[in-house]
């Protein structure tokens, strides 16, 4: 047989990069075909990712040596549970974003072709290709290129609306991101020069912690923290994510900030777990906690919905790095291993789905009211119940209320924090949840208010339902969390269960 699609070693994960890339190129050639091509590519990506999930859970982690050159000479793409889970999420969010974008960015409805209708699709597909590449790659330098691809396409999406604020936000985003890239690249350079390898797995074998390894890890982490907008390097995120058009915001907030976190996990948990000292882990946690508190407080003070949602991303990303102090914090009492690590990834996944839903719902509100000021939300619960429901479901997941993926993640992290006696991180988790309730129930209350009546431009039910489906998925992730849990355990790094010792 020429193509054995069911073979456990069929390079599906390579396709999840190549397909959106190819689609981006086609979309750049023909803007008439672009929306269809983008949708097909995203569906194929999701299909490939789901099928890989099946393969990976039955046969274990999958590796593709690109060009049949094994590392250290070549680059290896690796599908472990974490990578596949992220690929599935990326597929889902991009399908939703592309479906929502069809109306606003369709060349068919706009002749002659317009700037945004042309450029949205190739850029969106480049983002998808870039994040997928970052999820599956196991090569530090290749990850750099993948991050750059994502960053440039993402910054262009920020600038897409063509307003002055959008250009400023995009420039600011790029300045931070490029600085982050430089730090990351410097770290990669030191790593290669010290160990002679770039492959994360090989690095794990050869890494002994000399001063250059420590410096490399620190520099790479600084770069990645900038790109994932971790406190205190978060200032670029809210203007950027709120300036973009809704489907682009969904891609940015749901996907673009995730690869840096995944790489951070891979570097510390897979490549250099022995470098993490308790002080370092607590320091990571402290940054995360500051991000949670500051992001939430700033989110409360915003008067525009998209800014609220964007600041909430800053807060939510803070939770993720709590994995560093909490990893391995479980006892014999817990029937699961690697609670904190799995919990952080659950939060990552559910944040992606929920934030995607929230930005798409916000996009629908903007279309209906013409702006995203909070006081324009009044009365929308009656006029646009579907979008409001989507926003509500996403809010439930972000607040970490049950049943939702956010709750599963928070429960696991919380258990680890109590089990390891680090109750202060537990307080951060609980208080963070309460703060998010404050800034998310505010907009929801306004939607239920009846006075004053405002003008509304109708938004089709089908398009509103897209956000609803994403929101529903973030809930279902918590209700049916066993399968995702099992997937994430495939080839989980040792440090995830044992902690850093």
């Amino acid at each position, binding site marked *: 047989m020429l193509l054995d699609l069911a073979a456990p070693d069929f390079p599906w994960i390579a396709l999840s990069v190549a397909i959106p*890339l190819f689609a981006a190129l086609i979309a750049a050639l023909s803007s008439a075909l672009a929306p269809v091509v983008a949708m097909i590519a995203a569906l194929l990506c999701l299909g490939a990712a789901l099928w890989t999930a099946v393969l990976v859970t039955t046969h274990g982690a999958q590796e593709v040596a690109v*060009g*049949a050159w094994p590392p250290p000479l070549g680059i290896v793409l690796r599908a472990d549970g974490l990578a596949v889970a992220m690929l599935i999420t990326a597929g889902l969010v991009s399908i939703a974003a592309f479906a929502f974008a069809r109306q606003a960015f369709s060349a068919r409805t706009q002749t002659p072709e317009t700037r945004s209708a042309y450029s949205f699709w190739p850029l969106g597909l480049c983002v998808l290709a*870039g994040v997928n590449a970052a999820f599956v790659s196991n090569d530090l330098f290749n990850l750099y290129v993948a991050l750059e691809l994502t960053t440039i396409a993402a910054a262009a999406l920020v600038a*897409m609306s063509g307003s002055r604020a959008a250009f400023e936000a995009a420039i600011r985003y790029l300045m931070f991101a490029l600085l982050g890239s430089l730090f990351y690249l410097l770290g990669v350079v030191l790593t290669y020069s010290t160990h*002679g390898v770039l492959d994360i797995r090989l690095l794990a074998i050869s890494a002994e912690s000399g001063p250059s390894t420590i410096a490399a890890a620190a520099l790479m982490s600084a770069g990645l923290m900038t790109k994932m907008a971790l406190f205190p390097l978060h200032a670029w995120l809210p203007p950027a994510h709120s300036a973009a058009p809704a489907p682009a915001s969904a891609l940015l907030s749901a996907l673009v900030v995730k690869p840096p976190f995944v790489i951070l996990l891979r570097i510390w948990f897979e490549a250099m777990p022995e470098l993490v000292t308790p002080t370092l882990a607590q320091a990571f946690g402290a940054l995360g906690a500051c991000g949670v508190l500051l992001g939430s407080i700033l989110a409360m003070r915003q008067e525009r919905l998209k800014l609220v949602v964007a600041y909430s991303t800053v807060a939510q990303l803070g939770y993720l790095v709590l994995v560093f102090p909490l990893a391995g914090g479980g006892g014999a009492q817990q029937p699961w291993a690697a609670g904190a690590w799995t919990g952080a990834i659950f939060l990552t996944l559910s944040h992606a789905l929920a934030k995607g839903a929230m930005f798409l719902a916000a996009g629908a509100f903007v279309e209906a009211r013409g702006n995203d000021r909070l006081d324009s939300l009044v009365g929308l619960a009656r006029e646009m119940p579907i979008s409001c429901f989507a926003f509500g479901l996403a809010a439930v997941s972000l607040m970490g209320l049950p049943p939702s993926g956010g709750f599963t993640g928070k429960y696991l992290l919380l258990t680890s924090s109590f089990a390891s006696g680090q109750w202060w991180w537990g307080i951060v988790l609980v208080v963070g949840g309460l703060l998010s309730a404050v800034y998310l129930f505010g907009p929801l209350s306004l939607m239920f208010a009846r006075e004053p009546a405002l003008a509304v431009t109708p938004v089709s039910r089908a398009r509103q339902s897209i956000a609803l489906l994403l929101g529903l998925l973030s809930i279902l992730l918590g209700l049916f969390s066993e399968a995702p849990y099992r997937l994430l355990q495939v080839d989980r790094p040792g440090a995830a269960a044992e902690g850093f010792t």
Partner: protein
Amino acid sequence: MAPAFSALTLFDVVLCVLIIGVALCSSSVRDLFAATVLLIIYGVFVAIAWVRLGAVDVALAEAAIGAGLTGVLLIGAVARLKITESPAAAVSRWQFAAKVIPASLGLLIASGLAYLVLTVEWRETLQAPVLANLPDTGVLNPVTAVLLNYRAYDTLLETSVLFAALIASWCTTHDDLWGERAGLRQHTRRAGILATFGRFLPPIGLIVGIHIFWAGADKWGGAFQAGTIFAAVWILAIMAGVIDAPNATGRSIRSFAVAGPMFFTFVALTGVLAQSFLIIPVMVAKPLTLAIEACLTLSIAATLMLLVLGAPRRSA
């Protein structure tokens, strides 16, 4: 080790001092145009440093892209911004802190790196396998082998970065100018110097470019260096009025920009036939590599040219 301190080492040290000096000047001079010119000079010096480090491919790339292309881009931007001096900032306590923190951070990182350079035992272990597998790659230049075979996936993503940057910079077009020709309309007198250059230089440039492209397989050079030279030729021809500036909505220019990565991706996808990805079979390694390089060169040339011209602008 006194004997090692030869004339060449002295040259190296002087070169390094020059590089640092130019970098400092470029970073501190108030006049933006001067800063840009200094950056170009800096790039040339760095290219010489690369030659001294035995990295001719990088030297070419640094000269063509790092110095030449970046310089042209910056000069174009300075001209468009119509400001040559960054205004004198009001000195306040904040401003002071805003200088001290970066300065101490820069100093910390530089000295840390220097410390590491001098104390750590560095390792380069991949050169042997690169050379050992060279016969299977169909090319003789190990750098090209890495770029288009061992780590061709990097290059695939890198061409995608260029592509994304092109679409991204098109995205900065004014909505009402979409469909206009790229950049500002050039007004060149037919008998002017530029026009003359524009007629003479392109053929020479083409020949140089083709040579670098061809040499890339065996000695040094390659798609990126050659593509940059072609882009320069192209731009010159446009500035001289020999050919028209392209139009972002034009089908042919889009095809030019997309062809290389598309062919590359296509080749990569055929790898799935062998249950892998981006396989360059040994039998056809040389012709396939050359074909990929040719397509990439074309697209890189088109993309860089478009990036330099920038989005369509209003002629003020």
